[in-house]
């Protein structure tokens, strides 16, 4: 074969690659403009000075006795906020997920399609779950900080509402992904809806429900730290104060405790889930 050298070495996929690269660059430029992309900003004299001062205070991490006590208290506060929020979220999510469960529809029995009103109620409640879930927990926290003031309550309520939306939706998916014939048979034979749920649906999906709840609790700990940044109590709130005062050592200690806490929650949740399955 006598092929010209340039032809021999040509990448057979080049038209696609070149088009891809051009489109990519065309999208990149406006995005770079919109995000005010400018790494140079870190190296101008003022920000360099501030960063240097701030970084210099990072070591050693703060470790005085009074500070350690504060650290322990706020770490426990974070756990308390996450756990209480999770409990309230369950209290809201379980009834909502039962009410929206299509398997438990009585009007569907025999005919196969739900009545107009029950279908509308279920769709409406699904929208409530969606709405709860779509507003980020941080925004809920901001709203509650306005309504009930700074502190733990705002964080608990923010977690409760957002997680109620998430947990409710996932619980619903778990119920409806199970084999629904047992529940339907119970309903068709005249069992009440709650009885049909407890004897038909719950036994087969309980492990999955519990394991998802434990996993969400772990996520709640992570997010309760972040919620503190808008004044909703716990580690985050203290960390934000230390950052404002540019007390790097304290920030580092808080970060280390936070990472330890998340690691611990992760371990506990893994153990519990392994034990349940």
């Amino acid at each position, binding site marked *: 074969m006598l092929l010209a050298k340039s032809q021999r070495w040509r990448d057979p996929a080049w038209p696609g690659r070149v088009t891809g690269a051009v489109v990519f660059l065309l*999208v*990149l430029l*406006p*995005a*770079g403009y*919109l*995000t*005010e*992309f*400018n790494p140079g*900003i*870190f190296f101008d004299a003022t*920000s360099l000075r*501030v*960063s240097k001062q*701030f970084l210099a205070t990072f070591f050693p991490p703060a470790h005085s006795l009074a500070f350690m006590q504060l650290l322990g208290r706020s770490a*426990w*506060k974070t*756990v*308390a*906020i996450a*756990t*209480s929020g999770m*409990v309230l979220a369950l209290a809201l999510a379980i009834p909502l997920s039962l009410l929206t469960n299509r398997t438990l529809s009585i009007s569907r029995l025999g005919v196969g399609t739900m009545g107009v009103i029950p279908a509308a109620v279920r769709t409406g409640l699904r929208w409530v779950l969606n*709405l709860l879930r*779509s*507003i*980020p927990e*941080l*925004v809920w926290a*901001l*709203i509650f900080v*306005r*309504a*009930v*003031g700074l*502190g*733990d*309550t705002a964080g*608990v*309520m923010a977690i409760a509402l957002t997680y109620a939306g998430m947990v409710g939706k996932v619980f619903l998916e778990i119920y409806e992904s199970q084999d629904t014939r047992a529940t339907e048979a119970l309903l068709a034979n005249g069992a009440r809806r709650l009885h049909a749920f407890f004897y038909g649906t719950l036994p087969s999906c309980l492990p999955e429900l519990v394991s998802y709840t434990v996993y969400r609790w772990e996520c709640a700990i*992570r997010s309760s*730290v*972040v919620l503190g*940044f*808008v004044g909703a*109590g716990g580690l985050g709130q203290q*960390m*934000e104060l230390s*950052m404002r005062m*540019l007390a790097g050592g304290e*920030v580092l200690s808080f*970060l280390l405790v*936070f*990472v330890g806490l*998340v690691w611990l929650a992760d371990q506990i949740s893994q153990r519990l889930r392994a034990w349940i399955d």
Partner: protein
Amino acid sequence: MDRLMARAGLACGVLAFIIACFMSLSGDWSGLFSREAASRMLELVTSFFPPEADPAFLRKTAYATLETLAISWMGTLLAVIAGLFSALPAAGLWGTVSKSIARMLLNALRAVPELVWAALLVIAAGLGPFPGTLALAAHTTGVLGRLFAEALENAPREPYLALRRHGVGPVAALSYGLLPQITPQLTSYTLYRWENNIRAATVLGVAGAGGLGQLLYYHMGLFHFQETGTILLAMLLLVGLADTCSTWLRTRAMP
């Protein structure tokens, strides 16, 4: 029997833990569920309506929405690049020492949430969308780097090694022998993270890092509730859109 006892013990422990948690919360709980607090909450929510519809403000909100999208997209892109570069050592391509160092770095990046990164970077770079972008990039690099490294470890090495043995340079061998195998995984992880980052970018602004969050924090701080209503609607729209798009992509475009 033992298992039953263990379960009962665990249940009691969990119950005690929950009670302890509720006890240690400060703040007035009776107040929260009182009629007065409920009416205050209702008043707050109704004050969001009607949302501000002044064209100038709508333009401002639209710009902030675009900025949020740009932050999420730039942050994800930077994270893909950095994640890919750190995944190479983290997958053990260059020996065990660089592997454990890279893994440790990725773990540290991932352990700090986006908002904390944003608060730290705002101190160093000032207010604006740029520190927000970098904050997203930092956290996402940790997440994606680990996922990419796992994908690389699971891909067969033979095509890469064969190219190397025939004298192909390391970069070319990597990009023709190894990366094409993990491209589908790279794409799906990246899209999944992008969706996540759109959500994260809407709230990053609370730490002063640009986008819708910054606008929200500003107007809420000044008790401009109708403006806040508009911004909340924009957030809901953006998150809903991202949700729908990613569901569509996952079910239709990627079987």
